[in-house]
């Protein structure tokens, strides 16, 4: 297999020198591309449009067949849905859990990544292999024993149950190790001559260069925590500590027949993620190819 996957240029590759077909053929081709692009846009975006429309209609307009394709600006759905569950609490819980988890993952990954990438110590390869093997244990398998462990720690139904099991990331450690390994040794030697401590070296020299990796780890840990469901669903039971997705699932259970209100809830719970995505889309895309091991369900 050819090892030619290195990226020469992360920008869009423009192949203007490709063999140019005839004018007519080009026009047909162009039309075809426009059609395919439009179909893709509709396929992937229409469900989002649909939930917004549903959330802005009366129940009658939604339950008729065929359903209404245009909004009727019924904002009561939002007011009703918002008043029927502690959404603010769910949001604050989610933000707190996601922020703390992200911070902890960054810290533990930086420390361990630095140790593996830049420090010498006995048993390094063995420990590294041990860390990598952690990745082999899927979380579905861990749900039962971790439930019992958390129960014995009296951590069920707390924030900690949703934070600490995810405070270490093999993917994060692995990614940062790669960065620290690639740091030229002379940098560290020069720093030593200046009398810098290892910690100062880590902070002032190593970390700034690892910035892209840190952004990737941060974004995907945050997103993974925000979107996680099974774990908090099993490990928590009261809205005071539950994240937004579990809250939404409870709402589906208690208000599942109120489709317009439910749609409104889907819209306002999804909006923050969407905004975050639109603001940071470049980082999301760049991170996707690297983030493959770091996203949890």
């Amino acid at each position, binding site marked *: 297999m050819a090892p030619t996957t290195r990226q020469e240029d992360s920008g869009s590759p423009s192949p203007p020198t*490709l063999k140019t077909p005839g004018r007519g053929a080009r026009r047909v081709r162009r039309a075809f591309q426009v059609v395919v692009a439009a179909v893709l846009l509709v396929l992937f975006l229409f469900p989002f449009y649909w939930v917004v429309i549903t959330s802005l209609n009366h129940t009658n307009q939604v339950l008729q067949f065929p359903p209404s394709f245009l909004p009727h600006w019924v904002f009561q759905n939002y007011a009703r849905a918002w008043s029927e569950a502690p959404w603010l609490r769910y949001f604050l819980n989610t933000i707190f859990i996601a922020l703390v988890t992200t911070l902890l993952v960054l810290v533990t990954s930086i420390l361990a990544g630095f*140790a593996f990438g830049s420090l010498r110590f006995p048993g390094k390869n063995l420990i590294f292999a041990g860390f990598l093997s952690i990745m082999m244990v899927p979380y579905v398998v861990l749900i039962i024993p971790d439930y019992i462990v958390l129960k014995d720690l009296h951590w069920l139904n707390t924030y900690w149950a949703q934070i600490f099991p995810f405070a270490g990331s093999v993917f994060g450690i692995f990614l940062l190790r790669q960065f620290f390994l690639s740091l030229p040794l002379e940098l560290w030697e020069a720093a030593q001559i200046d009398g810098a401590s290892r910690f100062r070296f880590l902070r002032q020299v190593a970390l700034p260069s690892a910035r892209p990796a840190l952004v990737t780890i941060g974004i995907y840990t945050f997103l993974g925590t925000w979107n996680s469901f099974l774990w908090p669903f099993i490990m928590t039971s009261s809205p005071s500590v539950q994240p937004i997705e579990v809250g939404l699932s409870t709402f589906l259970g208690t208000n599942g027949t109120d489709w317009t209100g439910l749609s409104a809830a889907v819209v306002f719970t999804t909006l923050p993620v969407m905004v975050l995505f639109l603001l940071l889309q470049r980082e999301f895309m760049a991170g*996707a190819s690297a983030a493959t091991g770091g996203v949890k369900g």
Partner: protein
Amino acid sequence: MSQNPSAQFVRRRMREYFTAYLYLTPSGLVFLVFTLLPALFVLYISLFNWNFLNESLSRWVGLGNYRDLVTSGQFWHSLLITAYFLIGTVPVGVILALVIAMFLMDQVPGRALVRLAVFAPYVTPVVATSIIWLWIFNPEYGLLNALLHLLHLPELGWLQSPHWALIGIIIFTLWHSLGFSVIIFLAGLSGISTELREASRIDGATRLQELRHVVWPLLSPITLFVLVISTIGALQAFTQFYTMTAGGPLASTTTTSYLLYTLAFIFYNTGHAAALAVILFLIIGGLTLVQMGVSRRRTFYQ
């Protein structure tokens, strides 16, 4: 090794060792407490008729839980459903993602927007998006049947039908996670030098030939990687099954992961669930080994 074993040197070395172990401790502890020990613990539980309410009433049954599982119809049925789900999402998903990525490599109008649209479902939560699709799939009032009705095609039961429910979930899953594979393929494709593709086109190669003889071979490490990643994801998929069908109708969407959940947290049949977890671990673990082989090959690719 150094030729100057002075006391200062030894002290510095010891300090470096100490720093290293200190830096490894936080993540090491997390892995130990929440992954390594629990993984051994689940193996232990699987050998007991575990009484969840009162652990002292648990009874040693040896391999009894495993025997019960492999002799029960629901275990094998869940494997079958899991296999269908894998086939429907993984190979199909890889091919679709590759086709979309190739399409987006060209100077397509609105390219950035399309890329954003394809990726958007992946970043949105599964609970929220599966609720949207639950509504689209509704046989009486849903969009999909309205569409079929307009086209004078027979309307389907979708998630209410044992024949269509899994297909519905597969459609949702493809919609939700295709974007991730597309982005990875895009990154991989942009790494294939344009000269190579250009050369093949000058030689008069068709698009299909270009795909088969140039792009596909060069892309194969990435393809394999995407395959393994999505296989592992599919084996652990839970949320859409919980929200959209709860494993039904009948057991038509009860995958092995979903069965694990019902055994463990609805029926509190902890011993059997633990045995099922161990089996699932062996299956996923085998696939992860493949993934590690692949990722070692792709380390130079950030």
